Structures are given as C-alpha cells and as structure tokens.
C-alpha cells in the first residue's frame, strides 16, 4: 500500500500537468459562477454600504432581504445547475486521459485529449452504473433510520434513532466508497483490458472486493492528507476583514483546492498502481491457466490406444468435445484430489 501511495505521488509529481489542467478547469468553472455572483452583488449593492457587513462574515439579514433581488438570484441558481452538469460531463470526459496518462507515465496534451475522447462513451455508461449504485447507500440509511425509529419508540428516547441513523450513514459512506473504488477500477479495466462497461464494472467489483482494505487504505491516506492540509489552513487563515486579508484568504483556499486536485491525481495514480499489481497477478494466473488448458487440450488431442470397439471420432468432433471433456476431468479432479490430473 505504501508503495502504491509513493508511486501515486510520484506519478502526480512527474505529470504535474494533470494537476494544473484539472485545477484550471475546476477554477474556470467555479470562477465563472463566483464572478457572476460577485457581479450580481456588486451591481445591486456595491453602492449600498453592505459590503462592510459582509466582510465581517455570514449576515442572515442581508441574505433574507436578498429575497427582493430574487430574480437575479434564481437566474444564478439556474446557471449553477447547468454548470454542475457541464462539469460532471467534463470530468467524465477527462477521466480517460488522466488514467491513460498515468498508466503511460508520460504526459502529452494530444495523447491526453485523444485518450479522453476514446473512453468517454464507455465512461459515461460506467457513470450511470455508478449512479445507480447510489440507491444502495440511500436504502441503507432509510432502513437504519426505520430501525432506529422503532428502537426509539421502544426505548422512549431519540438516542437509538440518532445512533442507528448515524451508523446507517457511516455504513452508507463505506458502501459509497466501495462503489467509488469499483467505479475507478472499472475505468482502469476499460483502459487496460479494453473491457466493455458492464463487464468492467463486474470485474472491478470482484477486484475491489478482494482488495478493499488496501484500496480503501490508499484513499483514506489521501483523504487524511486533505483533512490535515485543510485543518492547518483553517487554523492559520486570516479573518479576511480587509482587502489584503480577503486576498490572503483566497490564496489559502486555492492552496487547499490545488492540494485536493493534486491528491486526487495521486489517489488515481496510487489506485492504478495497486490495480496493476493485482492485475498482473491475475493476468499471470490467467496466463498460467490458459497454458494449463492448452497443455490439457494438447494432451487430449494426442492419439491414444483405443481398446474399445467404438469407432474413432472424427477430428472436428473431437475438437468440439474437448472443452466438455476437460471440464468433466477438472470436476472429477476436484472431487477426487487423489486422482491423477490429465
């Protein structure tokens, strides 16, 4: 796991262009909306002497009286919804490029966008499958809340309800993380093994199931890094009550966002490393199995002395029957380990 983390960070560092690109896209999308918001406020209120109140922090009265500028606000919210959709599509689009670049170990813009375009269709399907899996954590929360409610009725206290609901949320988070990892690994499968989306998701499910602890560990380490950076920045962040203060605050916020983007790339890199390790073992095993199967087939194909009076099968029929015979033999072998393998 540690090696995977190190590799993830190394890959993110060597392909820093990925971090820059993702950060820039994130910034452009968010900045567009933020500037629209700022302009709305400035257009309506720059001369209204409310800026000083807002510098101090959250101002509920300003917000509640924004009701009287509701037309502008609602148009802004519409923009936000479209922006979110656009960003999600953009993120799905770029995923192929990110994975392929990290896999290749070298970054180049033409390859990046070519890879992005190559995988976008399959990644969108994967995204839909991933979205469907969200029903499961939602269901878990609903079920746990219902159990909590019933427990609370019995205990005549809201405490069981709170505990059950929180437990449900915790479990839902784990399930969500699990499927997030499946989603990520499924993308690797699509890129590395040229699988179709559904097949990739099933295969990734099996891989994550077998490697959940190490994959989750990688994710957790990177999440903790984000948490620590966020905490440090929160502690040292200025209040932002002057122009310089606000600027310093913005800088720190952007440091955190950039760190998150970097660690996101590193996470993908780390997961990819772990995936490759496991995929290599799988492929080796598969290869060995194939070799074994080939040997077995060859062995079956060799002419044997026929003692029976049955007529010898035609070569084509013999080929057709090979698999069935092989399976039967394997099955027999499994039932009776003492019996010699063919």
């Amino acid at each position: 796991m540690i090696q995977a983390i190190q590799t993830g960070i190394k890959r993110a560092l060597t392909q820093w262009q990925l971090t820059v690109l993702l950060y820039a896209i994130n910034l452009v999308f968010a900045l567009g909306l933020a500037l629209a918001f700022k302009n709305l406020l400035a257009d309506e209120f720059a001369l209204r002497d409310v800026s000083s109140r807002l510098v101090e922090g959250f101002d509920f009265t300003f917000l509640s009286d924004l009701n009287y500028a509701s037309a502008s606000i609602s148009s802004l919210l519409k923009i936000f919804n479209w922006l979110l959709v656009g960003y999600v599509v953009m993120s799905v689009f770029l995923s192929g490029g990110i994975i392929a670049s990290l896999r290749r170990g070298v970054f180049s813009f033409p390859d990046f966008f070519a890879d992005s375009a190559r995988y976008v269709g399959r990644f969108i399907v994967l995204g839909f499958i991933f979205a469907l899996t969200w029903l499961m954590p939602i269901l878990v929360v609903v079920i746990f809340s219902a159990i909590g409610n019933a427990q609370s009725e019995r205990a005549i206290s809201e405490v069981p309800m709170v505990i059950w609901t929180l437990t449900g949320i915790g479990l839902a988070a784990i399930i969500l993380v699990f499927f997030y990892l499946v989603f990520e690994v499924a993308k690797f499968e699509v890129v590395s093994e040229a699988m179709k989306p559904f097949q990739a998701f099933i295969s990734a499910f099996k891989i994550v199931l077998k490697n959940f602890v190490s994959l989750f560990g990688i994710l957790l380490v990177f999440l903790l890094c984000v948490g620590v950076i966020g905490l440090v920045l929160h502690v040292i962040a200025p209040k932002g009550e002057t122009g310089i203060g606000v600027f310093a605050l913005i800088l720190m916020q952007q440091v955190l966002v950039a760190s998150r983007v970097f660690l996101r790339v590193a996470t993908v890199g780390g997961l990819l490393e772990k995936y490759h390790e496991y995929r290599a073992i799988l492929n080796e095993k598969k290869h060995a199995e194939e070799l074994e199967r080939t040997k077995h087939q060859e062995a079956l194909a060799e002419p044997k002395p026929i003692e029976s009076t049955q007529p010898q099968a035609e070569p084509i029929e013999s080929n057709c029957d090979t698999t069935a015979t092989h399976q039967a033999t394997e099955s027999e072998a499994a039932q009776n380990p003492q019996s010699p393998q063919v």
Partner: protein
Amino acid sequence: MKLVVKHIILLHMCVCFAQAQQLSPRLANYDITATLDVPSRTITATEILTWKNHTHDTVPDLQFHLYLNAFKNQNSTFFKESGGQLRGIGLEDTDNENVWGFVEIQSMKLLSLNGKELSEDLTRRLQFIQTDDNNKDDQTVAQVMLPSPVLPKAEVKLEIKFKSKLPKIFARTGYAADGKFFLVAQWFPKIGVYEAPGERYVPLTAPRGKWNCHQFHGNSEFFADFGIYRVSLTVPKSYVVGATGVLQSETEQGDTKTLVFYQEDVHDFAWTASPLFQVFTDTYASKGGHTIKLTFLAQPQHADQAERHFTAVKHTLEWAEEWLGVYPYSTLTIVDPVYGGSGAGGMEYPTFITAGTFWKVPLGIKTTEIVTVHEFGHQYFYGMLASNEFEEAWLDEGMNTWLEMSVMRRYYGGEAGKKSAFGDKTSAIDFLGIRIGDVEQSRAGYTSPSNAKRDTIVKPVWTYQRGGYGIFSYNKPGTMMLTLENILGEEMMKRVMRTYFERFKFKHPTTRDFIQTVNEVTGKDFTPFFSQFLYSTVAMDYAVQAITVGESDDDEPEGVSADAKSTEGTFKSKVVFERKEEAIAPMDILIKFSDGTEFRDVWDGVGRYKVYEFVKPAKAVAAYIDSENKFLLDVNRNNNALTTKPQTTGFWKWAMNAMFWIQNLLLIFA
C-alpha cells in the same frame, strides 16, 4: 444553623405572603378531584365550579369550553381547520379509536345559586352550541340554561362529574409513549368569560353583556377568567407528577398516590404524569422578595441539559421583572416532553410550561433556550396579561416574541446583542460558522415578499390563511414591538410596558388598551403607527434612491454621476429618498459629505420621494435612511443606504468563499 432556620421561616412567610394577596378578581374557581386510569388513558373527575357574576347583568345561562372534544373525530372545527395537525405534527393511526379524545359530562348538578343551597340536576339541560361557525358536529362549546338567572354580583356553584379520554399527543394534550407520559391540558369543562358592557369589545351602550366562549379552532389558543384552583390528582404510585401551582400534600394508597395542588390567581390548570421523569430543582430570588422554586422534569437522556433550562428561565425572570413586573407565584415547572410526545412541547400554562430539546444538542444551537425563554415569557403575556387568544393572538404571542427576542439578544447575543437588535448575530444559531440572531430569524419570517402583505395582525385567529398565524401572531408583531422600542428608546419602552403590565395584570387587556397606554405614557399619538401595522396589510420599505453630484439639471436623478463638476469650487449635490411601499413613518435622514460633515433631518415619510439639494464645497458621498436600524419592519434593509464610492471587498469575500465551496463540490463529482 439558626440563620438557616431564620431564613427558612422568612422564606416561608414570603411565599405565604405572595400567595395570600388577592391578585385577581377570582371569578372562576375550581375544586377538582381527578383519577388517572393509565390503561384506558382516561381521567374520571368531579369538578366543583364556583362562578361569580361580576357584572350588573342577570345571566340566564352558562357556557363551557369542552376543548377535548376537538379530538373526538375528524368533523370537529379544529380538525377541519387544521387538517389534523399542529405545528407539523399530525395525528397518526386514525383508524385506532384509542388515539382519539373527548370529554364527556356525565352529570351536572346545581349546588347553589344566588346564595341559596340547591340540588338540581342540570344534565339534561346541556346542549352543544357553535358560537363561531355552523358546524353542528363541533362539540367544543356547551351551554346550560339555569332554572333561574345568576343575579348581578351573585355566585353559582355546580358539581360536574366528567370523564376525559385523552388523545394521543399531537396538539398540546394527551398521552404518548404507550401511556408512560401524560400531558393533561384543556381537560376539564371550563367556563367561558362573561363580558359586561364596556368590557373589552362589548359596547358600553349594549343592553347587556355576553358570553365569550369560542369553539376550539385549528390555530386558536385560550381565554379564561382568573380564579383559585385546588386540584387533587390520583395517579399510579410510580408516576412523577408536575402541575400548575404548589404541591400541598401527597399521600399514598396501595398502588396509587394522591397529590393535591393549589394555586390562586391563575386561569388554567395543566399537569403531567410520567414514570420516566428525572426531577431537578433550583430556586430564584424574585424582586418581589419571595423565592421561586424551579422544577425541571427531564427525560433521562436530557438530564445534562437541566442547567440550560434553568439558566434560560432565570435570565427571563431577571429581564421580565425589570421590564414588566414581579412574577408573583412561588413555583414554575418546566416539562421536557417524552420522545414521541413533542406535540406537547413548547406550550404555556400558568406556572407550568413545556419546553423541547434534543439529545446532545450543541450549545451553539440555541433552540432549547429560545423555546424555554418563550414559554416562560408567556407567564406574563397570557398568564398575567390574560388577553383573548382567540381574537387578538398577537397580544400574547407577538408581545411574547418581542420578550423572547429581547432576552435572547441580551443574554445570548454577546456584547453586540446588548447594543442593537441587528448587532446580535448569534442568539439563535452560532454553529459551524453559521450565525443567526433571534431578531433576524423572527423578522425574516415576516419580511419576505410572499409574506409581508398577506394579512393583518388583529383578526380572529381562525380567519388567517393557512400559515398566516405564525407570521401575523408572532413574527410581524414581535418585529413591530421591537421597532416601537427602537423608536421610543429603552427607558420609555420600559415605562410603557411596566405601565401596561401594572394596569392590566390579572385582567383581559385588548389591543386598544395597549395603544392607549402607549399614547398616554409617551404623550404622543401612536395610533397611525398601530393602525398601519396592526390593522392593515401595508408593508414598509424606505430606500435611498439616488445621489447625484455635479451640475445636472435633471429633475429626476437617475444614478450616481461619477464625474462631478465643480463650479467655483462648489458642488451641487442632490439626494433622493424614496418610499417604495405604503406604510408611512417619520424617517431619520443622514447625508455625509466628502469633507466629513454630516446633514441630519427627519423626513415625515409621507410623500413618495424626498429630495435634498445642497450647494457647498464638498460632495455628498453617502446617504442613509433609518441609519440606526430602528424600523426593523422595513422589509428590505439592503436599500437603506447609498454611497458614491463602490465598496466590493465584502462581495469578493463572499464570492470567493462561494467559489471555494463550489470548487470542493465540483471535486466530489470529478
């Protein structure tokens, strides 16, 4: 030790003295003996009611509230109006007859009338009447014709045997937790209020008075005469009981126990019984010289919040005794409703309130305090100033919202809260960077464009549109009272409120009484102010429309002229103020100039516009209307100032904060 004994004796004398004084007219006096049967959720009781006719009328009949019949079926007026819910909590499992409630008068006997001892059965004379609507299915008011009228200043004494089946709690009263919690309110046949000509809104010229006995409505609360209550309650021995008044005795008989509560000069009696309660007590030294015993009946999981409740009550007591008058009673019981019984929470009865909290609720979320402060505040606005909650709900809920806001900002809003209403940004919520003052949240309930002009404040509560009760009985009048305080100043407001309290405590004050008190104490006519905000739907919005500086000859300034021109070193500045809504009030005007000088004026606020023009060596750089935030009723305070120099630092901060959170949100989807 001697000192302790001396202190106890003195304390006892004070308590006795506090109770011995007759504070109210004591027109409706009750002696009730009741037994709670837990399995059937039923109370069987005998009520001896002594009612005094304080008027010069001969009164031929008596009218009674039978509030519990609101829960008899879905045809009651309460159910039809409320849709079977109160404050978002509905009655569930309606096919189960056990969830319904009713009060049944089993017998009514006349014991004495006009000084004569009698023994006449009146049961068959009882009939249900509908005083507000024609809903014949509503049985929340009953009338009995007496064999002969009650003479002026005479008394009638009745013995009423009744059975009260308690509903499952969703609207204040009933049982919860499968019978492990009872909050028993509106539970006994309660006589209405007979009003003589000249009292409240009965014209002085009317030939006679009349009963004021409204049906139980979806939104309405209560109205009753003061009296003495002696109530004997028999409950299972394991049940902890809390009630209105002072516990006089407690005796055990087998599996049950009987507790006797007594209280003078109150107009209702409520009680609770539950084996789950943990009992906490504390005391408060009243300015009246007596000690008030505070009892908190807590759910076990909220035991660690006893101090929060006591502190909230003590703060309110301190504020109310300073701003209104002495709390004369010697007890106060705070009930923490059981899980599943939250419909009983946040309610007030004399010397007895229900609060509402949640397990481990953070200190920064001050709903526990807000509810406790509010409900205790009702000991004044409802308890002692017993206005008619059916007809003028704002007099208790609105004034009490003002009390709640005042207490919350003074004690929970930090130093800024003590200075100004809008300075307080923390008295409701101060948690995870979200900061909201109690004044702000209450005001916002009224000022939104969809609410501001929906209804009037003064009107029978059952005529409000759905959702209007909260806005026009709580939010708007609370905000109006704070606006009044800002206009009058703290000391004058205190004088007004103390006078109002002293003059009308243990009476039934009206809106008219309050307005007259304000006018009299201040020596100014505030009738136009109250006419607009209490009796009409008009909203208030004053704004600074424009500042122009230069040599513009335009009559209607349209914006700020950035390139101001000078003429012989002088500037022509024009500042336009605007009234955007219908409400009118005098407004403080403040105009600031580039040389630091200021111009102040008071605009009568009558016209649609007010234009100020200046020719002086300095430019007008900023203008403010109501710069001290007196008129919290102004629905949009974001337009109350205008400057010539754009200020955008705050917007950048908010926009960049928004960007930061959007970026993080986007990264989740990346």
